[in-house]
Structures are given as C-alpha cells and as structure tokens.
C-alpha cells in the first residue's frame, strides 16, 4: 500500500495548481558547476576534432554517445507509456521526462565526427557486413544522421506540443502575439477542437518517436557496433540495446525525480513514493529483461561454437573486455535484481535512486565493452577475428570528454527546466479532476477515472 506523503498528495491539488517554471535551491552553485562541466565538454569536443577520421580515437566518444542515446533520448518514451496506459503515477513526471528531448539534440552534434570516422562499406573489392546491403545513398553517415534528425525533431515537437497549453497563457495574450510567434504557439486559445487536435497529434508523434527510436537504435548499434567487429552477427542485439535503453531511461528518471524533490521544492511536492513504486516495478522488470536478452544472445553462440561468433563474444564478453562486462552485469542485473526484490527499496524514491545510479554505471560500462571493442577493431573487413584484440584503454581526453558530455546534457536540461513550466500544469489539473480519495467501508480508496 502506497500512502500519499504528508505534503505530496500528488494530485489532490488544493488550491488549483498553477504552472510555473521551477526554482532550484542553491541555484548559483549548481549553475557554476554544471556550466564548468559543459564548458569542459565543448573544449574536449573541439580537441577531439583534431583526430577526425581516426576511428579508434572516437571509440570512447561513441560509447558515451550511445549512452546518451540509451538514457536521455529514451526518457521521453516514459511519458508516452504513461499516457498510453493512463498511469496516474506518471502525471508529475511527464513534463520532467519530456524535457530530456532538448539535451538529446546533442546526439546530432556528437555523431558527426563519429560517423565521419567510419570506413566505407567496400574497400579493395571486399565488403564488410552492414545493414544497408550495398545501398549507396550516403549510408551510413547521411542515412543515420537523417534518421537521428527526424527522431530528435519528433522528440522536440512532442516536448513543445505538450508544453504549449501551459506556455501560451490566456487567449488574449496569444492573439496579441506577432504572426510567427502565434504559429509557434499553435495559435493556442484552448478551444475544444484544439484540445482534440493536440491530444491526437501528441499520440501520433509519440508513437512515431518510439518507432524512430527503435529504428535509430537498430542502425546505430549496427553501424557503430556489429559491422565493425568481424564475426559479430546478432539479430537480438538491437533489441537488447532498446531494452537496456529503457532500463537506463528509467534509472535516469528516478535520479532526476529524486534530485528535483530534494532541490526543487515546487516540483518536489508532487513527487512521492507513488512514482517510485511504479518506476521500481518497471526497473526490476527491465532488469530481468537484461538477463533474458543477454542470455538468449550468449547461449546460441556458446552452443553453436562457430569460431567467428565465439571470437566476437570472447572480445566483448569473456576475455578482452571482461572487466567492463562484469561491471555491467553487476550494475545492470545482479545488484538491481537482488535489491529491488525488496519492497522497502523499490518503493522509496531515495533508495531507488541509489540503485538507479548503480544501473547507470553498469549501463555505461556495457556501452564501453560493446562499442569500444568495435570502434577500435583493426580490420572490419575480415570475416572473423584471427586473434583476440588487446583492450583499448581510454586516455585522459577520452575521460574528460565523457565527463564533459554528461555536463553538457545536465546544463541543457537545467536550462530548459527553468524555461518551461514543470510539472505540466494542464495534465496535473486534468489528473486531479479524474481522481478522488474516499472511504469505502473501512478502507481508504482512490477512485481513478479512465476516460476513453
């Protein structure tokens, strides 16, 4: 049983909640720290550009880029899932997660030099394995960037559309805007027709974003992963990547909600253990999925004993990158599974946040073992690894680059958090209308309306 917290009766909003941007305690310190980290990221990106075309040099940047794809870019999908399932727990979190669409835009910039360093599909008459089957339409650089751009635009549109009713203000204000701005605000006056159109378009854009996300994951994980490591051929790998991305996204959301509750009381009052209980369930389910997908992949290679496949698995699991793999296994599966079984951990936001940090660390090492192995492989044109490669260790620039990328994501997120009202006002009010607390015989019950 999840008791609403003393202050955070998440949705029983009396007096009616008015949307506003958030105030962060110790704002100055946070801004300076995050700004410095972001600046470090920009500098390191510029420094790395001198290694343009050197694939191995971009191995760790590729790993952190796919980590961003797996966490930040996947996060808005939770808003979609919560709306689809009409999950009340998700109401205060929806805007919080949708705002991750803006820092996701970094993907586009990060991918330019990484995709630019990839070898051609054909060299000296030898073709390397790829998903484009010899199609010469600019793959992988143009095709991947095009797909990423479309996905990011869909995410941005979703974030903006969901925010417009809160940002637009009264109809008189919108009518007084210049034409371009009115267009930007979708000419929002809150008519019944506009609401219908808004909801329908949000539903379709969300579904499109999900499909694009899956597609982008499939092509990026192949172009930056499987097609560069000879002998690695795994149909389940894109699905594994999607599943672990959802796991990473949930972990990121838990941590974000925890920090907001701690440092942004205006949002924190709506975030309680009700959110933790639901996110905790998802997290443990996805943790089990990690094992299922990993095992389905590993078992077949182990069983079939094809030398080329075995060598690939020895590279990124059993021998060369065994340390990152073990960290990933503990972080993504063993520790969360053992801890999240217990209700007191799963249902308490602060405890869940600690587990989520472990999950994110595991995820980062997972991406390192998978993509550093591929990006640093010597000859992607051979049919199998003749001998196992040595691990490719990061240098100081790689480490600073990765820290900097996290800083840039945090900086952009904090910026947008202070610009767009959080949590989403219209959905919170609507949620409050559809929710009632009452007594039924001796029990306290919630009555949850589910409009069609």
């Amino acid at each position, binding site marked *: 049983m999840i008791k609403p917290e003393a202050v955070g009766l998440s949705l029983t909003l009396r007096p009616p909640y008015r949307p506003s941007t958030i105030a962060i305690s110790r704002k100055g310190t946070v801004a300076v720290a995050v700004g410095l980290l972001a600046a470090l990221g920009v500098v390191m990106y510029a420094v790395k550009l001198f290694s343009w075309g050197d694939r191995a040099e971009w191995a760790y940047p590729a790993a952190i880029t796919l980590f961003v794809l797996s966490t930040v870019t996947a996060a808005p999908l939770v808003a979609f899932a919560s709306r689809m399932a009409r999950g009340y727990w998700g109401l205060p979190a929806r805007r919080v997660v949708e705002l991750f669409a803006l820092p996701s835009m970094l993907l586009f910039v990060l991918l330019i030099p990484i995709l630019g360093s990839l070898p051609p599909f054909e060299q000296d008459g030898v073709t390397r394995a790829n998903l484009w089957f010899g199609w010469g339409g600019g793959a992988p650089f143009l095709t991947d960037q095009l797909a990423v751009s479309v996905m990011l635009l869909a995410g941005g549109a979703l974030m903006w559309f969901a925010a417009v009713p809160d940002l637009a203000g009264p109809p008189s204000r919108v009518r007084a805007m210049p034409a371009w701005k009115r267009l930007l605000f979708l000419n929002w006056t809150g008519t019944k027709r506009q609401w219908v159109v808004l909801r329908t378009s949000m539903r379709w854009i969300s579904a499109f974003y999900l499909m694009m996300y899956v597609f982008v994951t*499939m092509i990026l994980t192949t172009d930056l992963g499987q097609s560069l490591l000879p002998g690695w051929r795994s149909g389940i790998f894109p699905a594994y990547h999607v599943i672990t991305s959802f796991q990473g996204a949930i972990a990121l959301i838990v941590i974000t909600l925890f920090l907001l509750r701690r440092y942004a009381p205006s949002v924190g009052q709506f975030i309680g253990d009700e959110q933790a209980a639901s996110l905790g369930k998802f997290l443990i389910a996805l943790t089990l999925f990690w094992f299922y997908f990993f095992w389905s992949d590993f078992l077949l290679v182990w069983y079939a004993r094809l030398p080329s496949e075995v060598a690939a698995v020895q590279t990124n699991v059993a021998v060369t990158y065994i340390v990152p793999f073990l960290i990933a296994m503990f972080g993504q599966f063993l520790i969360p599974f053992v801890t999240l079984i217990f209700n007191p951990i799963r249902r308490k936001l602060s405890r869940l946040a600690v587990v989520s940090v472990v999950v994110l660390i595991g995820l980062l090492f997972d991406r390192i073992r998978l993509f550093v192995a591929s990006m640093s492989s010597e000859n992607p044109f051979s049919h199998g690894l003749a001998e196992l490669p040595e691990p490719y260790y990061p240098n100081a620039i790689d480490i600073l680059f990765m820290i900097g990328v996290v800083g840039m994501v945090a900086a952009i997120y904090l910026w947008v958090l202070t610009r767009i009202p959080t949590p989403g006002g219209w959905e919170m009010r609507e949620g409050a209308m559809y929710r009632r607390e009452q007594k039924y015989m001796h029990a306290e019950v919630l009555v949850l309306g589910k409009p069609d």
Partner: protein
Amino acid sequence: MQEPVTVDRETANRELLDFVFAWPKWFFATTGLLGAVITLGLIIFLLLMIFGLQLFGYAHPVYWGFPVVNFVFWIGVSHAGIMVSAILRLAQAEWRRPVTRAAEVLTIFSLMTAMTFPIIHSGRPWRTLYWEFPYDWMRGIWPNPRSPLVWDPAAIFTYLTSTVMFVYIALLPDLALARDRVKNPIGKAVYGVLSLGFRGTTRQWRIQAIAGILLSALILPIFVSVHSIVSWDFAVTIIPGWHNTVFAPYFVIGAVHSGVSAVVTVMIIMRYAFGLKNFITKDHIDSLARLLIIVATVWLFFFMLDFMFGLYGTEPAEVDTWQRRLMEPPWTAIAIIFIITGYIIPVGAWLFRRVRRNFFLMFVTTILVNIGMWLERYMIVIPGLERKSNLTFQYGDYLPSAAEFGIIAAQLALVIAGFLVFSKLLPIMPAADIKEGQILRDEIKVGRARVPATMREA
C-alpha cells in the same frame, strides 16, 4: 469501461453459471462432430503406428514436418492465458476480468494438445520407449542435459502444472458458487470437494487473492522460458535460417500475438454460444484489439530483425535459405499470405475503432492472424531443412500428406472439445472476479460528463 455490466448480482450468478447447468441441443451436435474428427485423428494415429512415418510427406533431408510445426503453433497459442491473465492482472487492467478464465483454459488444452505432437512425430512411439527403458547404461551414451530437446518437456510440464494451479486457485470461489446452486446431489458433492470448503470468509478471500498474485508473478518466467526453449530447439543448431539470436523473443512475442488472437476468437464464439452478451462487450474486444496492435507491431519488428540479420552476414547458405523462403514458389505465395494475414490485414483493420468494436470483423481478423502465424511457423521450420545439399546441389523437398492434414484437423477438434467439456463442467467465466469488478466500478463527475472510474487501494 465505457459499457459497464448493468445486471444485478443474482442475474449475474445465474447467467454466468447457466451453461454449466443447461444442456442445449447444439452442445450434443457439436460434441458429436468434434468426436468424429478426433476419431479420424485416432485412426490416422493407428495407421501411423502400423505403417510408420512413411504416412507423412517426409523426404530427405526434411524429417521435421507438420507435427513440429503444429507443436510450435499450439505452444504459441498456449501463451494466451498468462499474457491475458497474469500480466494484465499485475498491470491492474480492469477489462481483463471476463477474459481471463477462457484464456487460461485455452492455455491448458493447447498445451496438452501440443504435448501429443512429439509422440506423433516419433511415428511408432513404443519404439522410443523400447530404446529408452530400461536404459542401457553399458553403452556409455547419456542423455544430453544441455540440449533444449531435454529442457522442452521440463519447461512444458512446469508450465502446464503452474497453469492448472493458476486456474484452480481462481476457480475456487466459482466452484463454491456452483456447489451452492447445483441441485443434483452428486454434482453438489463433486463441486463441494473441488471447492475445498470455500465459504467466502475474509481469511479465505485474502489467501486466495495472495495466492493468485504470487502465482501471477511466479508464472511469468515460466511463460517466457517455454517458447524460448522451443525456439532454441531450432536456433542452437547451425542450420541456415534457424541460427539467429533473435529467435527466443521473436518466438515469445509471436506466441503472444497468436494466443491473444485465439482468445478473441474464443471470446466471440462464447458470447453467442453461451449467451454471455452482458459480460463480453465491445469494450473487451476493443481493448484486446488495442493490445494486439502493439503486440503485432513488436512481433513484426522481431520478424524484420530475423530477416535483416539473416541477410546481414551475407553468408551464402543463409542468403540462399531466405531467397528460397521469399522468392521461390510455393514459398513466395506462402510468405505473401503469411504477412498479409498475420499483420497487414488485421493490424490495418484494428486501427479503426469501428472494426475493433465489430464482433464479426474481429472474429475474421483474429482467425486470419492464426492462419498467418501457422504459416509463419511452417516457413521457419521447413525451408531451413530443405537446404541445398553440399554434394548434389539439390534442394530437399517436402509435401505434406493427407494424413498430416487429418492430424491437424483432429488436434484442432481436440482443443475445441476440451474447451467445450470444461465449459460444461466448470464455470468458464470468472463469476467472482466479474462481481469484484462491479463492486470496484465507480464514476467521477467532471462538469456535465460522467467518467467511468475504478476504485483502488490508496
């Protein structure tokens, strides 16, 4: 739910148990017809024992034919029960209530039917026993416990046992209801024993609810493992077209697609045959169709992964198999029918609310799904085995015989007959669950509108 059940509790009790106590004429006619088809299957099985596997269309190198395809298909259908019952229960989906029992019963009978196929597949089953028992330890040959063929029976028996327990726990209050209403003393005694003395005390309800939730959670890994292991029967080999790491989730989601579609088909038949119009409404079918859109699309994604990563390595044997599957007759026609019936027509139709709420169209589209899914299994199993011989450069050939079609018909009849007999003896609608749903149903007034609502523990 937008169309709440409006009958009072007494009418609900009567209507939900009506079929258990009544003997409609069509029941005898249908049972007779099904019995005839099953008898035909038994005759074929008898002939199989006399003449052996020559009765089937096997030809070198294809020795896995219809029986294996059907085995995979019926295991797939059996995934309906847990998907609908356990997952939706854990997700607290209110619309699941009238659907659960039928789905679980379908699971039991399709599992039982699936288990007959390995026996049929062996041709003369007693020979298997002859070679196995007593086991000749002196040969120094041991069963390979690392083989998925050994894991299969373990997983399937565990799944069957847990599903039976799951159904039985949920049945207890309904058995007690039947015990209290049946007039026949023998029936009263039987239901009395089966209901384990359930009187509806608070403690009994609590234990029953906890057992249900625990079983829901515990059965999920078994649910996933069953079809995964079936998929590994194929995937751990290095046969082209089979050796793909995506097989396990691809098989599981395909099974859910097939199983939930079968549940919709069964629900629609039940609605008319058992007079359950008050309990199986358009909303239930609509919700199942929405679920199916998602499941089918995920399934299509995995199919695409299987296809693309089959071609990805550009290994000649793998490409050759896919070319045969998609580009050569009769496989081209089968592939087109499979994709059109398995995805394009049904999902295209389900996008429209009007179709989702039309019983006839839902009946047709869900049957199409299962035709498509059967063909999918056929496409997976056979072309991989018909691969080109390394020495003669010739493809193998397999043409199913009439006997194999007869077996299919008999097995289908067996599942339907099992379901029908169960419905005759035990309540096929979870009366207690439905009534609980009625109690928890509420309304919230928003302006002038009344929004359907559900009570939940705070």
